[in-house]
Structure formats: C-alpha cells, structure tokens
C-alpha cells in the first residue's frame, strides 16, 4: 500500500466516519436520556436523505406524509389521554386534510439547502412523535422491551421508505462538485463539508448542553431520572427533545452522505449499527467518545475493505462483540453491585 493510497483511504474513512460519528452522537443522546438503544437510528438517516432528495427533485416527499401521519396520531393520543372526546375529529380531519393537500400540491423543486433544512426538521418531528407514540407509553419497561420496539420501528420505517421512494438509489446534488488536492490526494469538497459540518454540530451540541438551561436539564435527566423529576424536569419532555435532536442530527447526516454514497431505502441499518459500534467504542456515554469512536470505525472500515474487500463489513460488525465484552468487563470492575 503506497502512502497516497493510505492517505486516500484515511480521508475516505474519515468522511464515512464523520457520518457514523453523527449517528453515534444521536444514539448516545437517546440512550443517555431514555435508556433506549435505538436500532432504528439509521432509518432517520434514510428518511432525511430521501426526503431531501424528494423535496429537491420533485419526487414524492414521503417524509412529509409520514410527519403528517405521525403528527395526527400524536394529537389523537393527546386528545384520548385528556379525554377531549369532543376534539377527536380535529386530528383525524386535520391529518386527512394535510395528507390530501400534500398529494394535491404540484411537485416541489426546492433548492438543495432548503430541502435539507425541511428534511431535518421533518425527521426531527417524526423522531419525537415516534418516541411519544411507542416508547413513552411503556417508559417503565425494561431496556430489552425498548430494543425490540425499536427493532419493530426499524422494520416499519424501512418498509415505509420502500413504499414512498421505491427500490431505486438516489443522488443528492453535492454542494460543489470540485475537489482540492492535498498531499497528492484528491479531497472532494463534499468530504470537507461532511467533516466541517460534524465539527460544527459538535460545537453546537456542546454549547447546547453547557450553556442552555434545557441542555443542562437534559443532562440531569440522563444522570438521574428520579432526581430530575423531583426538580421539575419531565422525563417525557426530555425524551421527546432527545429523540427530536437525535433524529434531526441523523437526518443531517443523511443529507451530507447522500451525494457521496447514493441514498436508498435500505441504507439505514448498516449505518446505524456502525454508528452504534462507534458509540460503544467511545463508551456509550460521552459525546466526544462517540465522535472519536465513529471516526475510528470509518477509518478501520476503509482499510479493512481495501485489504479484504468482501469481508470488510463482517469485520466491522465483528468488532461489536469484543468491544461490548470489553466494555462490560470494565463496567463490572467499576460496578457497585453485581
């Protein structure tokens, strides 16, 4: 392997790794606040990428339909909870009306940046609604129940992705087609954008958690649910926000990676799992750890794929097991109880 090849693989790996890092951040955020291991994290990436593609190219924007349906269901549940029987018609009719409107509108061709923004917000909303509809009602259930629920969500969302956009693979226009040359390696602007965006998001998240009251409240809810509740932080609201931020982050990751790898309905699971591997490498609790872990997984994957093409994927997944074992052993040493 020449130095140029190695550098190329490194840049490639870091680009993918940045995406895994964003996913890892989302996974850690959700896990910290709600104790949910979200198998469906990658589906937020898929929804984000395909919704943005749809909005910018005039194909069906299924993400919006999903958001309308999820929002209507959310409102319906809220009405049922509060026994507002007289208002039940509102979410039903409102949802149906919006759905009809989405279908009736002419094809959209939003500029890419706007499409990306709308997609991120839409997916963030879908994420929050899914938490409210599936996780929150069983908030006291065990972690395994959560895991199976998100496995169901993964399957359902992937099916919806296929329903909305079909089996094709879609490209999203990259921000600038060119590339710079550094050290004999061609680094595309898109790669740079991915890395810079990841960095920016990290800084924003840090500011949010350190400098805003709600960010601090989220951290409190992550550390001690009962304690947070006692000082007036609603775990349900914390969960909704965590899911929204996490889903929005993943959607951004989807928009960023779509120009590089093409977006398909089934892109989510493998991305999500690699994000998870990265998060676990980083300790499954800290945000910087998740980012470093994600980058490491990306680089490792790039080199593994180069040297043993067919089994590159298997090696990355295979990493999950020793890493989990190591983590559990370390935890056990520290743990206060067996």
């Amino acid at each position, binding site marked *: 392997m020449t130095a140029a090849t190695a550098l190329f693989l490194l840049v490639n790996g870091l680009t993918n790794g940045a995406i895994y890092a964003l996913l890892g951040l989302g996974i850690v955020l959700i896990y910290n606040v709600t104790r949910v291991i979200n198998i469906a994290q990658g589906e937020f990436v898929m929804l984000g990428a395909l919704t943005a593609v749809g909005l910018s190219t005039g194909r069906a924007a299924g993400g919006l339909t999903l958001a309308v349906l999820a929002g209507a269901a959310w409102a319906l549940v809220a009405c049922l909870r509060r026994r507002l029987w007289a208002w039940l018609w509102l979410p039903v009719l409102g949802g149906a009306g919006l759905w009809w409107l989405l279908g009736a509108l002419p094809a959209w061709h939003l500029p890419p940046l706007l499409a990306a923004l709308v997609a991120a917000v839409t997916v963030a909303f879908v994420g929050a609604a899914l938490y409210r509809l599936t996780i929150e009602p069983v908030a006291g259930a065990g972690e395994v129940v959560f*895991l199976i629920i998100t496995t169901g969500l993964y399957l359902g969302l992937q*099916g919806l992705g296929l329903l909305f956009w079909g089996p094709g693979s879609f490209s999203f226009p990259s921000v600038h087609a060119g590339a710079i040359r550094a050290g004999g390696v061609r680094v595309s602007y898109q790669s740079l954008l991915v890395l810079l965006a990841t960095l920016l998001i990290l800084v924003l998240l840090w500011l949010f958690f350190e400098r805003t009251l709600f960010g601090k409240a989220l951290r409190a809810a992550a550390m001690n649910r009962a304690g947070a509740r006692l000082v007036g932080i609603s775990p349900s609201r914390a969960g909704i926000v965590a899911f929204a931020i996490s889903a929005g982050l993943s959607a951004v990751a989807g928009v960023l990676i779509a120009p590089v790898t093409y977006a398909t309905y089934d892109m989510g699971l493998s991305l999500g799992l690699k994000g998870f591997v990265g998060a676990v490498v980083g300790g499954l609790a800290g945000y910087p750890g998740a980012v470093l872990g994600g980058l490491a997984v990306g680089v490792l994957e790039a080199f593994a794929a180069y040297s043993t093409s067919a*089994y590159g994927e298997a090696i990355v997944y295979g990493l999950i097991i020793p890493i*989990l074992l190591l983590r559990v052993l370390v935890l056990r040493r520290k743990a206060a109880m067996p």
Partner: protein
Amino acid sequence: MTRRGAPAGGARVRLAAAGVAGAVLLALPWLLPAFYANLLCFIAIYGGVATGLILLTGYAGLVSLGQAAFYGIGAYGAVVLAGSYGVDPWLSILLGTLLAAAAAYLVGLPILRLSGHYLALATLAWGIIAAILFTQLAGLTGGPNGYTHVPVLSLFGVAFIDPERYYYLTLIFAVLAVSSLAALIRSRAGRAVRAMRSSEAAAASVGMEVGRLKLQAFVLAAALAGLGGALFAYFIAFISPSAFDLGASIRLLTMAMIGGAHPLGGVVGAAIVTILDDVLQNVIPNASGQGGLVQVIAYGAILVGVMMVSPSGLQRLLSRLWRLRVRAGPELAAAVRAPAAGAPAAGAPGEGAPGEGAHPAGGPGAGAAEPGPVRLEVRELGRRFGGLQAVDRLSLALRGGEILGLIGPNGAGKTTAFNVISGLVPPSAGRVALGGEDVTGRGAERIARLGLARTFQNTALFDMSVLENVMTGCYVHTRGGVWRGLLGLGRTDEARARVEAARCLARVGVSELDAEAGALPVGKQRLVEVARALALRPQVLLLDEPAAGLRHAEKQELAALLRSLKGEGLAILLVEHDMDLVMAVADRLVVMNYGTTLAEGAPETVRRDPEVIKAYLGLDAA
C-alpha cells in the same frame, strides 16, 4: 401431557383433549384444501424453531436477534453436506443440527457474558456476520444465487416431496420441540433457567451454575433452529442467503414474542405470523399491488404493538389452555404431615427435613446446644467500590449452633459484607473460610454448594409459585440437567424436592404453596426466602433483615424458628434492625460502622458500649 397425580376426572378430560388435538393434527392435510399443506409445513417448521427461541427469550430472558444464523447453518450444513459431499440426507439433517449447536457453543461462550440489550446487540452482529458469510462463501453455499443441488429425502422408497407427506416430518419436529420444552421447564434444570431470568444473584446463591445454564439454553435453542433449518431446506429444495438474514431473525423473534413464555407459544406465534404473511401476500396485493411491502411494515407494527400492549405475548391465554404449574396436591400435604423415612417425626419444634443429615452437631433441645466447630471465618475482609471502602478489615468467626448478630447503622456495609461472604461480590482484601475450607473469591454458586445459604434484604424471589421457589433451594442436592429435563426424567427427585420444599414452608409457617410468590405480602415473602435457604440444607445461614415487614406475632415465630435452627447446630449470621429480636436471639453481636468492626461481644456488653451508642445515636448521646 397430563400431570401425574391430577384428579382422575381432570386427567381423563385432558387425555381426551390431547387425543382429539392429536387426531386433528394428523388429519389436517386431508381436512384442508391442498394448498394449505404447504402453509402447515411452514408453520410446523417455524413453530419448532420459535419454540427454541421461546426457551431462550421467554424463559431464560436472553433475547436473540440472530437466530436465523443458526437456522441458516442447519439449512446450509445439511444440504451442502448431502448435495456436495454425498452424505446421506437423513444423516445430513443430524449433522446440520449438530453444526448449528456447535456454532452456538462457540458464539455463546463469549457473548453470553453479556446480558440485556448488550446481548441482543451482540446476537444481532453475529446474525449479520453469518448472513455475510452465507453470501461470501460462494464456493460452498452457491453465494447470492443460492444452493440448488438439494437431494430428495426418502425412506424405504417413499419420497418426501409433496407437502401432504412432508407435513408429517415437520409435525414430528414441532411436537418434539413443544413437548420437550414443556417437560424441560417443569424440571429441575428448567426451574433453574426460569430462576436465572428473575434474579441471577439469587439463582447463583442457591447453587445454580448460571453461566452454564445460559449456554445450555443457547445451544438448545440453536439446535432446534438448526434442525428446523435443515427441514426447511429439504422442503423447499432451494436455499439462498436472503432466507437467513436479519429480517428472518426478526420474523422468528416476532413469532416468539407473540406466543410468549409458554411451550405452545412458538407454534401459535408461528401460525399467526405465517398465516398473516399469506394473507398479506395473497389477499392484499389484489387490492394495492404491494403485498410484500405491507408485510414488512406490518411486522414492524406488530412487533411494536405486541411489546406495548402485552410484552408477555399470548402467554396468559395459552396458560389457561394448558397449565404447566407444579401444583401442591393433597398428597403433598399428607407427605408433609407423615414422617418421611429417615427423618425425625415432624411436629416437634427443632425437627424437620432441613435438618436431616446436614448438621449432625445439633440435637433436639432448642437453644441448649454447645457451640460447635467454627463454620464460617472471615478475616480482615475488605471491599472497595471506587473511592468508597464499603467493608474494611472486617473479621468474625461463627460457630455451629450459634447466632451472631451483625448490626450497625444504615450504610455501615452489612449488606456488602453479606454479598462478599456469599460470593456475589469478590473481595478486594481478606479471606473467607467456610467449614475450614478457604473459599475467598469463589463464585456464589460454589459457595452455596459448600453449605452457605442466604436471604436478600430486598427479597429476591423468583417469578414462580411459592412451592417452586422453595424447590429451587433443593437444586444443590438433587440431580438432573437439561437432558433429563428434556426427556421428562427425574420424577422421583422432583417428588422428593416437592416434599422437602413443602416441609421447609411448613417450618417457616407459610401455607400458600400454590400462590405466586410475588403476590404475597412482603413479610411472607421474606419467610419464603428463609424456607428457600433452608431447602439448601445449609451449615451456615445468612439472613439479611428477615423480620422487616413481619407482624409482632410473626416475629416471635421467627425468633422461635431461629432458636430451633440453632439448636440443630446451624450457624446463623443475622443482620437485623429490630433490636428486640436481635437481643432476644443473638448469642454474640458484631457492630459495624463505616465498613469496619466497631464492637464485638455479648449483647448486653455491646448495648452499653459508648462507641456503639455514639454510632447509633450521635455524639451527644454518648
């Protein structure tokens, strides 16, 4: 399957019901239109595989998201051996099954150290790796295009090709899977698997080999998956990797989740999912043209819905149909009243099953026994958690026929000391000797086998009936592993364990043998835990606040029980906050504060010790 000793009328009804069900199952291919025979074969195959997953997920509490890997290993193993290497097809089914079991052993050995969702994720990773291997090892498996050289299964010239005939093969598989699971879960090994799910710590402290049991359940479930996979491969005569991917694993898990923890759960779940598949594929496309899609979305929705509405699936409904509880019949009550061979006559205080043969030093005269040899010796014991020294140079010696009270303010380290002594938490310093044998650092299960039994401060009863809970205490001195459980053997041992458990319960004064343990009031639950500990026939008994939640009269009964146990030569270490009780029964006291020994001596001396008063009541009181 009727339970032995059921009222004759009930047994007859059940036998008749089983007979009718059997006849219907045999006649099904003729009763239904030809097309359905296909569906029946799939239901039986998936049903058998899902039954294994029920053992794993429903009973042992180990979620597998990679079961399709073992299913695939069985399938590929069988047909590749037969098709490419000329192995006899029937033999290849056996070899495929063994291959899946061997793979499970190798994979399970490391990953079963994980638990909860970490384990689920590890199995998920394993499932994906296996799916990649099925595709990539194209020389063996035919790669993504699939494997087609599947020979035909035939026996004495009768070929199993058409579904009507193949159905009987799959039916044998499903019935075998269901009946062996039903036998297993009621056996000693099955009880251990269920106990482990409720509380691994409590399971280990009654002497169950938690790690080995997990591995056995994992291997057994994989063997069923492998056998099902082999039958599947010979049935459809063509296999490709897509049948064994993550989607397939989730599908199997959906079946198990719908069915819930019941031997019939796998088959019922498989029937529901398979029929639903068929409806979605064949009925809905006519309307929308997108059957496969709706199917995937429906799986997701079902999985989420089942988990939200009823995480235990159809378990309750199925249990009503076919009860599998070990029940205390009238003959058990009689056995408890009647003197058993070799045991002293029941009724008099200080005598009963727990004492038989376990501690010869004891005599019937309650409270009068001479202190026996040192049973438990703790020297300079320490346990540090990060920056907290929970137990610090604790030393004590406990003799047979002695009650040692371990007291101290909250947070003094008493419970940690219990956990270290009983082997649940390894010590960071010091030694523990049991009956003269150094047991420092040994696991709880080995320490329990050496004659130490304990109760828990926050009761840790298993999710089963009171009688079954106490029967788990007999684990160490009965025999019968997974194999005997599967075959339904070991009934005499079971009967003995039932009688002994009932005796232990009679001794602590709990009569609700058939009640769910979790449904009892807390005080009663503590007594059941004491009974479970007694069923171990221990030499050393560690009681962690046994009187909390007891009423006054019950406390007096407990004190009498402790005295009579002491009279039998049992060494008892008692942590208790009720000072009246401690002062009344303890021969000596050890006072702990900040993890270390503050005072030691006779109750009256300790009571007047100024240091002790200071620790309990604060500086001013001293």
